[in-house]
């Protein structure tokens, strides 16, 4: 797709309207993956993002790493994004869940459900980079960034948007708009879609550490009084794989700023205190970040010629590492219903198609939000009877293989009515 420039009578450069099928607002990890799915299937898409994608490739931009569940990894494989990530992705072979000083812990071993790992740990920055390169190679995809949508008209007959970027204004005609602009989605707010939101009064402190002993590709979720403390395996130095982890340290919101303000040595000491010494000596590498944690759900994920995906539709507690995974499920489901409609010759922004997407995702998202919220509440307090229930619960899950398998399949993202992309089928 190219933008044709022509001279107006006044001699000013005017850009003629750009016709596309789908306008994606927000080219983050979710929006860019969706653009890949459409572009790979020959559907014209235009992606608008306020950020220059090159900024996102910098290590200082986003220090997080994401647990890519097995089902999400399949999406990345099918969309040809995985090859670029594969060498640096750390497989999660086991998950250990433990609690404070409790002697009980849950142990999930991937061999209980088959040969494949639960998922992989991938640095966000690497995923962004892989997506950036993949999009560049797709002819039907047109990326406009940094740019923003300054006017949006959605009506029964179609969509018209005005995009303002460094080169001026461009008018875009499309059949469908997708809001993938993250938690603070302007697309969602402008559409008048309300949000249910509650804050956990918790912050997630994120950093990367190296450690003396190998993590053996085990993920550890340790429940402390302030909330979950997750140690997630990274590949690290290719010559010495397994000696690097990503940490998500949940802390009371009022305490997080003072922890962030500590000097390196004191921060390290606080960290060691929580981390323990099971991996030997540890060392913080690179910067640390703090993110406020809140849960939010949009009252609907669709509107006239509009669908929301990813954090724009639902943001959840990172306790189960599911935010990106749920976003990728949105991607797989939406790409499928839209392509199915298109292959039937239907108008791709029609209400029946969008309804299918909404019904498909609603149940799944609500369930996941409830599960992660419930887990966090259950584990984020120190009331004695509750602790006993938790301990017994963890022991019980270990003792009951079918229940354990159920949780494990959830962790792998393999539960529920899966879209084709998550079932190793062509889109």
């Amino acid at each position, binding site marked *: 797709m190219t933008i044709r420039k022509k001279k107006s009578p006044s001699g000013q450069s005017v850009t003629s309207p750009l016709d596309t099928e789908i306008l994606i607002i927000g080219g983050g990890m979710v929006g860019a993956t969706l653009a890949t799915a459409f572009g790979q299937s020959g559907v014209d898409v235009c992606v608008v993002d306020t950020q220059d994608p090159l900024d996102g490739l910098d290590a200082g931009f986003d220090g997080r790493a994401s647990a890519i569940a097995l089902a999400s990894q399949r999406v990345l494989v099918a969309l040809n994004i995985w090859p670029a990530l594969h060498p640096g992705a750390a497989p999660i072979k086991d998950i250990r869940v433990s609690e404070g000083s409790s002697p009980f812990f849950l142990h999930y071993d991937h061999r209980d459900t088959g040969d494949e790992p639960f998922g992989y740990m991938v640095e966000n920055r690497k995923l962004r980079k892989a997506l950036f390169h993949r999009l560049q190679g797709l002819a039907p995809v047109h990326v406009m960034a940094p740019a923003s949508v300054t006017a949006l008209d959605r009506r029964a007959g179609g969509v018209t948007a005005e995009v303002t970027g460094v080169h001026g204004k461009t008018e875009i005609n499309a059949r469908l708009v997708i809001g993938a602009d993250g938690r603070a989605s302007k697309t969602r707010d402008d559409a008048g879609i309300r949000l249910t939101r509650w804050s956990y009064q918790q912050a997630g402190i994120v950093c990367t550490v190296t450690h003396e002993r190998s993590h053996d590709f085990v993920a550890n979720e340790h429940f402390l009084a302030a909330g979950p403390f997750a140690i997630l395996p990274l590949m690290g130095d290719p010559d010495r794989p397994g000696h690097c982890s990503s940490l998500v340290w949940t802390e009371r919101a009022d305490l997080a700023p003072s922890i962030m303000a500590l000097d390196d040595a004191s921060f390290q000491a606080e960290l060691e205190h929580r981390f323990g010494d099971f991996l030997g000596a540890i060392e913080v590498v690179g910067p640390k970040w703090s993110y406020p944690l809140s849960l939010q759900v949009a009252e609907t994920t669709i509107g006239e010629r509009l669908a929301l995906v990813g954090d724009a539709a639902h943001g959840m507690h990172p306790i189960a590492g599911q935010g990106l995974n749920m976003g990728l499920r949105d991607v797989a489901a939406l790409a499928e219903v839209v392509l199915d409609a298109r292959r039937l010759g239907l108008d791709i922004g029609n*209400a029946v198609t969008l309804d299918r997407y909404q019904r498909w995702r609603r149940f799944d998202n609500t369930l996941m939000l409830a599960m992660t919220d419930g887990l966090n509440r259950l584990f984020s307090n120190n009331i004695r009877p509750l602790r006993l229930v938790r301990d017994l619960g963890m022991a019980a899950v270990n003792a009951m293989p079918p229940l354990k398998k159920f949780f494990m399949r959830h962790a792998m993202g393999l539960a529920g009515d899966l879209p084709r992309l998550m079932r190793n089928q062509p889109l």
Partner: protein
Amino acid sequence: MAQAAMKKNRKNASPAPSTASPDEIARFTAMAEAWWDPKGDFAPLHNINPVRLEFIRDHLARHFDRDPMDANPLDGLDIIDIGCGGGLLAEPMRRLGATITGIDAGQKNIEVARLHADQSGLDIDYRHQLPEDLGSEKGRYDVVLNMEVVEHVADLDGFLGAAAGLIRPGGAMVASTLNRTLKSLALAKIGAEYVLRWLPVGTHDWRKFVRPSELAAGLKDHGVEITDLKGMTYAPIERDWRLSQNLDVNYLAFGVKR
């Protein structure tokens, strides 16, 4: 369901016997504006449209040796949609690559269809005509679509003869209608019209519903052999229509012209 009321109601229409009754025409013309509102009066048609299109696309692709997953699997096929209504089928078929003629007995339907095709940027030849008007186009079409029409016509045999006559030898017909069973009376007529209010009351006359055997026999007389029949069943939990083996209520037929 609705696409056509088969009666000449144009000015100067000839008094020759026609295949539809005047009441039906009036009823459908009144509904015309609402055609394209997926939540409006025609919501049921919008809801069954994906299943109908899937049946049509897959059978035509197989018959004419195309890949149904192609961007334009119906490329170049000359198709006439009888009882095209507001164009709910004609537009998708055009997007799939076919050349489309749409005819309907309701003048207003044709106007709605033209207007909408224009908005969608699709070139479709819409005409206010009946199949029996198209004597000069006998044997022209690769495919005739007869979707939710036959249950509304007054003279079934005359209608089937005129429709079948438009297909070239080796061409195909796709038809869909409502079976005349007690279940269809309960579900489609009483359930859909009176209870669920999916359809305006009075949309259907159950006595005109057509059994698959009657459709097959009627078409055979005019050289069209039905090679496949499928049911359309509503899955209440998924709130979606599916193709099924159950022909009790809504069914689809694919036939080949000798």
